[in-house]
């Protein structure tokens, strides 16, 4: 070809136009999350008009405490979902964690702190086992964690056949303490957000997202899938253990069957917040919004004062409307910009 082409470097100028398009697609890509935020705002607004004193720290403290166990469980679940997996075993881990806390916590605060640390580490170790089984046996995470869920629940039931055991008062006081009207739960929420902001930016955080987005590509770039599995499920186990510890500050007891209550809601919170079950997309902030939506719906149904049989219907319908709205808005946003 004899023709001289314009200098390719010129196309660098094109990047400015790119950037504008970039911003609009950025918005579309985050539509599920953004609209989840919008829905939460709408729900809170409705709630606020129906009940007095909603816009107070007291309300924030209460709602955060109500959502926190789910939030911690959902944090781990979010990490696993981002990797394109799922962790049902958090149900067993939460049960086991509360049971261990109820039976092993005793003595001085220092001893309790040590025991709590051990429970957290145990959660991590159990998660690592999940990751190992998934990698080594090359089985679906659904099946592996279904099995370990059962094993962990069984272990919890062997230690405590029914709810029981008493947590030390200072432990529970610690969980419900407040400073200047802000409870430790809200503090924990802030920590959780900080953790996520940090974690998302780390190399591991990127590797997890990459593996969930396209495992083969990640592998080609040198990511060790085994390591990612060990760490994601490990973190999920760790957060399940933390959820268990937090839960004991609210219930003051060990509960060998309580964990199952958090399995589906943890996935639901993440999905409402914009996480795809196919991995790679979304983040923890969305999950937090999702968990709060689920909690606020409960409050809303209470203040709406509907008769008992209608309560599940109303909560289901609110959930559906919330998600439907975001799905529709996302669809139309995508269409108008494509």
């Amino acid at each position, binding site marked *: 070809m004899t023709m001289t082409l314009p200098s390719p470097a010129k196309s660098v100028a094109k990047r400015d136009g790119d950037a504008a398009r970039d911003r609009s697609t950025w918005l579309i890509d985050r539509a599920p999350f953004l609209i989840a935020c919008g829905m939460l705002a709408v729900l809170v607004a409705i709630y606020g008009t129906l009940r007095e004193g909603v816009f107070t720290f007291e309300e924030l403290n209460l709602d955060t405490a*109500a959502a926190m166990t789910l939030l911690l469980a959902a944090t781990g679940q979010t990490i696993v979902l981002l990797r394109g997996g799922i962790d049902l075993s958090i149900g067993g881990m939460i049960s086991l964690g509360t049971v261990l806390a109820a039976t092993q916590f005793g003595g001085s605060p220092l001893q309790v702190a040590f025991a709590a640390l051990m429970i957290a580490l145990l959660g991590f170790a159990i998660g690592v086992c999940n990751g190992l089984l998934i990698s080594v046996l090359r089985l679906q995470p659904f099946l592996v964690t279904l099995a370990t869920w059962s094993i962990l629940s069984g272990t919890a039931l062997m230690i405590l056949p029914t709810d029981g055991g008493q947590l030390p008062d200072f432990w529970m006081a610690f969980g419900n303490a407040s400073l200047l009207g802000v409870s430790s739960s809200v503090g924990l929420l802030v920590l959780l957000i900080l953790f996520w902001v940090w974690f998302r930016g780390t190399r591991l955080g990127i590797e997890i997202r990459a593996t969930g987005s396209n495992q083969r590509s990640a592998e080609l770039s040198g990511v060790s899938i085994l390591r990612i599995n060990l760490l994601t499920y490990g973190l999920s186990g760790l957060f399940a253990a933390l959820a268990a510890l937090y839960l004991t500050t609210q*219930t003051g007891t060990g509960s*060998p069957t*309580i964990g199952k*209550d958090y399995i589906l809601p943890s996935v639901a919170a993440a999905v409402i917040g914009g996480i795809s079950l196919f991995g790679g997309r979304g983040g923890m902030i969305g999950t937090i919004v999702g968990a709060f939506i689920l909690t606020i719906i409960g409050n809303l149904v209470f203040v709406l*004062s509907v008769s008992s049989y209608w309560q599940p219907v109303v909560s289901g319908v609110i959930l559906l409307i919330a998600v439907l709205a975001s799905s529709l808005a996302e669809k139309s946003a995508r269409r108008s910009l494509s």
Partner: protein
Amino acid sequence: GHAEAEAKKYKIYLSNNFVGNDWRQQMERVANVSVSKGPLEGRVDLKIENVENTVQAQINSLNNIIRSKPDAILIDAGSDTALNPTIKKACDAGIVVISFDQVVTEPCAYALESDWKRIPAVMAEWMAQQLGGKGKVFVDRGLAGAPISAALEKGYLDVLKKYPGIEVVGSYNGEYALGPEQAGVASLLAAHPQVDGILTQGYGSGAIKALQDAGRTIVPVVGFTYNSSALACAKTEGAKCILGSNPAYLSSEAIKLAVDILDTGKKPAERHVLVNGDFLATAPFKSELYPDAVTQVIEIGKNAFPDAPPGLTLPITPDWVTITAAEASGS
């Protein structure tokens, strides 16, 4: 004074952790009926809050209830201990808290329940008598992790232990539902060519059905006073049963207790309040362990109703108000 108290209408919340079975349905309906007539008519503004069978949801719901400052909260609890800190908060806020059916251990709340010591003891005693102190039995363990299940199982085993000739050859989890009861007994029947009695925590009729399906002879069965159980025992040839009662009107009793406490300001002597329903059996039975336990003989039309729904729990009504079968079943 009394007159003043009469005039006052109390705001009472009933927090129920689970709606998904017939017993809870009847319990809620009976609660509503008992504040709409009889001595409590017009006295109570009753609100029922159901949650989806999770402790967390019940804690959240209780927190909402506490914030609306009712006079009393009645709780059918999802856990006997995990709600304690929340209940303590309610008590501290001056609210009368009565736990019923599945009660809690929190000392500030009253615990109104069936006598979970007496019921299994009397029924196990009946079983031992049926077997002549010798034979192989299956025992239902109820629902894993549930305190009442543990209490019933322990009650059965404690009495059976006194009869060296009786051997517990298998246990299953009946989960208070017909399907699991029937499937559990069926599995055990496969493993054990011989069985002489079955102590369920649920219907008992599921066990009888499993025996029939497997082509076995009908052995003595222990169950609870559901209409379907009473009917199955009465109608099945050769069936021998005793049925313990956990009346669904525990809720009415809890409301009454709450109103009494609120009216009089007087607290019952005991935190634990036991409600004793009559046993039903296929033949007269006199307990030696609990001589005051009453056993009625099952009689169609009197305490078993072919026209009423099978899921109805008997007895239907407490003695201080009249609740009809139709009202209890909502039909």
